[in-house]
Protein backbone atom coordinates (compact mmCIF):
# COMPACT_ATOMS: atom_id res chain seq x y z
CA UNK A 1 0.00 0.00 0.00
CA UNK A 2 2.15 2.82 -1.23
CA UNK A 3 2.22 5.81 -3.54
CA UNK A 4 5.42 7.00 -5.15
CA UNK A 5 6.01 10.24 -7.05
CA UNK A 6 9.28 10.49 -8.93
CA UNK A 7 10.84 12.11 -11.99
CA UNK A 8 12.75 9.08 -13.22
CA UNK A 9 11.54 5.96 -15.01
CA UNK A 10 10.24 2.93 -13.11
CA UNK A 11 10.44 -0.79 -13.81
CA UNK A 12 7.05 -2.55 -13.51
CA UNK A 13 8.75 -5.65 -12.11
CA UNK A 14 10.26 -3.49 -9.35
CA UNK A 15 6.90 -1.87 -8.61
CA UNK A 16 5.35 -5.34 -8.36
CA UNK A 17 8.08 -6.89 -6.22
CA UNK A 18 6.44 -8.66 -3.25
CA UNK A 19 3.13 -7.15 -4.32
CA UNK A 20 -0.18 -8.69 -3.31
CA UNK A 21 1.14 -11.76 -1.53
CA UNK A 22 -1.84 -14.04 -0.78
CA UNK A 23 -4.14 -12.34 -3.29
CA UNK A 24 -5.80 -14.30 -6.09
CA UNK A 25 -6.15 -11.43 -8.56
CA UNK A 26 -3.73 -8.69 -9.53
CA UNK A 27 -4.60 -5.93 -12.00
CA UNK A 28 -2.21 -3.30 -13.30
CA UNK A 29 -2.74 -0.21 -15.40
CA UNK A 30 0.17 1.51 -17.11
CA UNK A 31 -0.14 4.85 -18.88
CA UNK A 32 2.30 5.53 -21.72
CA UNK A 33 3.08 8.77 -23.60
CA UNK A 34 1.21 8.33 -26.89
CA UNK A 35 1.80 10.29 -30.05
CA UNK A 36 -1.46 10.32 -31.97
CA UNK A 37 -0.72 12.90 -34.62
CA UNK A 38 2.96 12.30 -35.28
CA UNK A 39 3.94 15.74 -33.90
CA UNK A 40 4.48 15.05 -30.22
CA UNK A 41 8.03 14.99 -28.91
CA UNK A 42 7.38 14.69 -25.19
CA UNK A 43 5.10 15.50 -22.28
CA UNK A 44 6.11 17.80 -19.45
CA UNK A 45 4.26 16.94 -16.26
CA UNK A 46 4.01 19.56 -13.53
CA UNK A 47 2.74 18.63 -10.09
CA UNK A 48 2.07 20.10 -6.65
CA UNK A 49 4.74 18.39 -4.54
CA UNK A 50 3.25 19.10 -1.12
CA UNK A 51 -0.09 17.63 -2.18
CA UNK A 52 0.69 14.89 -4.70
CA UNK A 53 1.85 12.14 -2.40
CA UNK A 54 -0.88 12.71 0.16
CA UNK A 55 -3.66 12.77 -2.42
CA UNK A 56 -2.46 9.58 -4.12
CA UNK A 57 -2.22 7.90 -0.74
CA UNK A 58 -5.74 9.05 0.17
CA UNK A 59 -7.21 7.71 -3.10
CA UNK A 60 -5.34 4.44 -2.62
CA UNK A 61 -6.72 3.96 0.89
CA UNK A 62 -10.21 4.88 -0.29
CA UNK A 63 -10.01 2.25 -3.06
CA UNK A 64 -8.64 -0.33 -0.62
CA UNK A 65 -11.57 0.22 1.73
CA UNK A 66 -14.21 0.32 -0.96
CA UNK A 67 -13.05 -2.76 -2.87
CA UNK A 68 -11.43 -4.67 0.00
CA UNK A 69 -8.01 -4.68 -1.60
CA UNK A 70 -5.27 -6.62 0.12
CA UNK A 71 -2.68 -4.39 -1.52
CA UNK A 72 -2.29 -1.44 -3.91
CA UNK A 73 0.54 0.59 -5.38
CA UNK A 74 0.70 3.80 -7.38
CA UNK A 75 3.73 5.25 -9.15
CA UNK A 76 3.44 8.56 -11.00
CA UNK A 77 6.25 10.40 -12.75
CA UNK A 78 6.67 14.12 -13.31
CA UNK A 79 9.00 16.22 -15.44
CA UNK A 80 9.76 15.58 -19.09
CA UNK A 81 8.66 12.24 -20.55
CA UNK A 82 9.42 11.25 -24.14
CA UNK A 83 6.93 9.51 -26.45
CA UNK A 84 6.76 5.82 -25.54
CA UNK A 85 7.84 6.34 -21.93
CA UNK A 86 5.70 5.11 -19.05
CA UNK A 87 3.89 7.92 -17.21
CA UNK A 88 2.39 6.06 -14.31
CA UNK A 89 1.24 2.71 -13.03
CA UNK A 90 -1.46 1.50 -10.69
CA UNK A 91 -1.60 -2.02 -9.25
CA UNK A 92 -4.43 -3.55 -7.22
CA UNK A 93 -4.61 -6.92 -5.47
CA UNK A 94 -7.76 -8.62 -4.21
CA UNK A 95 -9.20 -12.06 -3.61
CA UNK A 96 -11.35 -11.98 -6.72
CA UNK A 97 -10.90 -10.42 -10.12
CA UNK A 98 -13.89 -8.08 -10.21
CA UNK A 99 -12.73 -6.19 -7.12
CA UNK A 100 -9.21 -5.85 -8.52
CA UNK A 101 -10.50 -4.62 -11.90
CA UNK A 102 -12.96 -2.19 -10.39
CA UNK A 103 -10.45 -0.77 -7.93
CA UNK A 104 -7.88 -0.10 -10.67
CA UNK A 105 -10.53 1.50 -12.87
CA UNK A 106 -11.76 3.61 -9.94
CA UNK A 107 -8.24 4.71 -9.01
CA UNK A 108 -7.51 5.75 -12.58
CA UNK A 109 -10.68 7.85 -12.73
CA UNK A 110 -9.62 9.65 -9.55
CA UNK A 111 -6.02 10.12 -10.62
CA UNK A 112 -7.05 11.52 -14.00
CA UNK A 113 -9.24 14.24 -12.53
CA UNK A 114 -8.29 14.76 -8.89
CA UNK A 115 -4.57 14.21 -8.46
CA UNK A 116 -2.53 17.42 -8.81
CA UNK A 117 -0.76 16.77 -12.10
CA UNK A 118 -0.85 18.93 -15.23
CA UNK A 119 0.39 17.76 -18.60
CA UNK A 120 1.92 19.97 -21.25
CA UNK A 121 2.55 18.67 -24.76
CA UNK A 122 5.89 19.57 -26.33
CA UNK A 123 5.72 19.36 -30.11
CA UNK A 124 8.63 18.48 -32.36
CA UNK A 125 8.87 22.12 -33.42
CA UNK A 126 9.31 23.12 -29.77
CA UNK A 127 5.88 24.68 -29.27
CA UNK A 128 4.00 23.72 -26.12
CA UNK A 129 0.35 23.35 -25.19
CA UNK A 130 -1.33 22.54 -21.86
CA UNK A 131 -3.52 19.47 -22.16
CA UNK A 132 -7.16 20.29 -21.50
CA UNK A 133 -9.08 18.23 -19.00
CA UNK A 134 -11.56 16.03 -20.82
CA UNK A 135 -15.25 16.08 -20.02
CA UNK A 136 -15.22 12.30 -20.37
CA UNK A 137 -12.73 12.04 -17.49
CA UNK A 138 -14.90 14.18 -15.26
CA UNK A 139 -17.93 12.17 -16.33
CA UNK A 140 -16.13 8.89 -15.57
CA UNK A 141 -15.83 9.90 -11.91
CA UNK A 142 -19.59 10.12 -11.57
CA UNK A 143 -19.84 6.35 -12.11
CA UNK A 144 -18.58 5.63 -8.61
Amino acid at each position, binding site marked *: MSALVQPGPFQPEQVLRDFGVGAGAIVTFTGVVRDDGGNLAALEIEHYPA*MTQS*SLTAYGHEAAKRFQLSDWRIVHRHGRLEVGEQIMMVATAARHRHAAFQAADYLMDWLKSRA*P*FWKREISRDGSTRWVDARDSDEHALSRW
Partner: protein
Amino acid sequence: MTFDVLYFAWLRERIGEPSERIESSARTVGQLVAELAAKDDWHAAAFADMSAVRCAVDQELADMDTSIEGAREIAFFPPMTGG
Protein backbone atom coordinates in the same frame (compact mmCIF):
# COMPACT_ATOMS: atom_id res chain seq x y z
CA MET B 1 -3.83 37.10 7.84
CA THR B 2 -0.90 36.00 5.68
CA PHE B 3 -1.23 33.26 3.12
CA ASP B 4 1.17 31.51 0.78
CA VAL B 5 -0.65 31.51 -2.54
CA LEU B 6 0.59 28.93 -5.08
CA TYR B 7 -0.08 28.76 -8.83
CA PHE B 8 0.35 25.83 -11.18
CA ALA B 9 0.36 25.19 -14.93
CA TRP B 10 -1.10 28.05 -17.01
CA LEU B 11 -2.19 29.98 -13.93
CA ARG B 12 1.46 30.11 -12.91
CA GLU B 13 2.39 31.26 -16.40
CA ARG B 14 -0.25 34.00 -16.54
CA ILE B 15 0.70 35.35 -13.14
CA GLY B 16 4.41 34.98 -13.85
CA GLU B 17 5.32 33.54 -10.45
CA PRO B 18 4.84 30.12 -8.84
CA SER B 19 3.86 31.66 -5.51
CA GLU B 20 3.42 34.86 -3.54
CA ARG B 21 2.77 35.89 0.06
CA ILE B 22 -0.55 37.66 0.41
CA GLU B 23 -1.78 39.74 3.33
CA SER B 24 -5.56 39.53 3.26
CA SER B 25 -8.69 39.70 5.36
CA ALA B 26 -10.53 37.30 3.02
CA ARG B 27 -12.37 34.55 4.88
CA THR B 28 -13.19 32.29 1.95
CA VAL B 29 -11.49 31.15 -1.23
CA GLY B 30 -13.96 33.21 -3.24
CA GLN B 31 -13.16 36.40 -1.33
CA LEU B 32 -9.44 35.79 -1.83
CA VAL B 33 -9.95 35.26 -5.57
CA ALA B 34 -11.79 38.59 -5.82
CA GLU B 35 -8.90 40.35 -4.12
CA LEU B 36 -6.27 38.66 -6.23
CA ALA B 37 -8.10 39.28 -9.51
CA ALA B 38 -8.18 43.01 -8.70
CA LYS B 39 -4.40 43.23 -8.21
CA ASP B 40 -3.26 43.66 -11.81
CA ASP B 41 -3.86 42.53 -15.39
CA TRP B 42 -1.91 39.31 -14.96
CA HIS B 43 -3.97 38.22 -11.97
CA ALA B 44 -7.11 39.33 -13.74
CA ALA B 45 -6.21 37.14 -16.73
CA ALA B 46 -5.46 34.15 -14.51
CA PHE B 47 -8.84 34.35 -12.77
CA ALA B 48 -10.89 35.51 -15.79
CA ASP B 49 -12.63 32.15 -16.26
CA MET B 50 -13.29 30.62 -12.86
CA SER B 51 -14.90 27.54 -14.45
CA ALA B 52 -11.33 26.55 -15.42
CA VAL B 53 -9.81 27.20 -12.00
CA ARG B 54 -9.51 24.63 -9.24
CA CYS B 55 -8.31 25.24 -5.71
CA ALA B 56 -6.75 23.54 -2.70
CA VAL B 57 -6.59 24.88 0.86
CA ASP B 58 -3.67 23.42 2.79
CA GLN B 59 -3.35 20.68 0.14
CA GLU B 60 -7.00 19.66 0.34
CA LEU B 61 -9.28 20.20 -2.67
CA ALA B 62 -11.64 23.09 -1.93
CA ASP B 63 -14.23 25.26 -3.60
CA MET B 64 -15.08 28.96 -3.60
CA ASP B 65 -17.07 28.69 -0.36
CA THR B 66 -14.31 26.94 1.57
CA SER B 67 -13.08 28.86 4.60
CA ILE B 68 -9.45 29.94 4.59
CA GLU B 69 -9.38 31.09 8.20
CA GLY B 70 -6.30 29.64 9.83
CA ALA B 71 -5.08 28.23 6.50
CA ARG B 72 -1.46 28.63 5.45
CA GLU B 73 -1.32 27.63 1.80
CA ILE B 74 -3.91 28.32 -0.90
CA ALA B 75 -3.21 26.84 -4.34
CA PHE B 76 -4.88 27.66 -7.66
CA PHE B 77 -4.56 25.55 -10.78
CA PRO B 78 -6.43 24.33 -13.87
CA PRO B 79 -8.43 21.07 -13.87
CA MET B 80 -6.02 18.22 -13.29
CA THR B 81 -4.82 16.05 -16.16
CA GLY B 82 -2.77 13.32 -14.52
CA GLY B 83 -2.75 9.61 -15.08
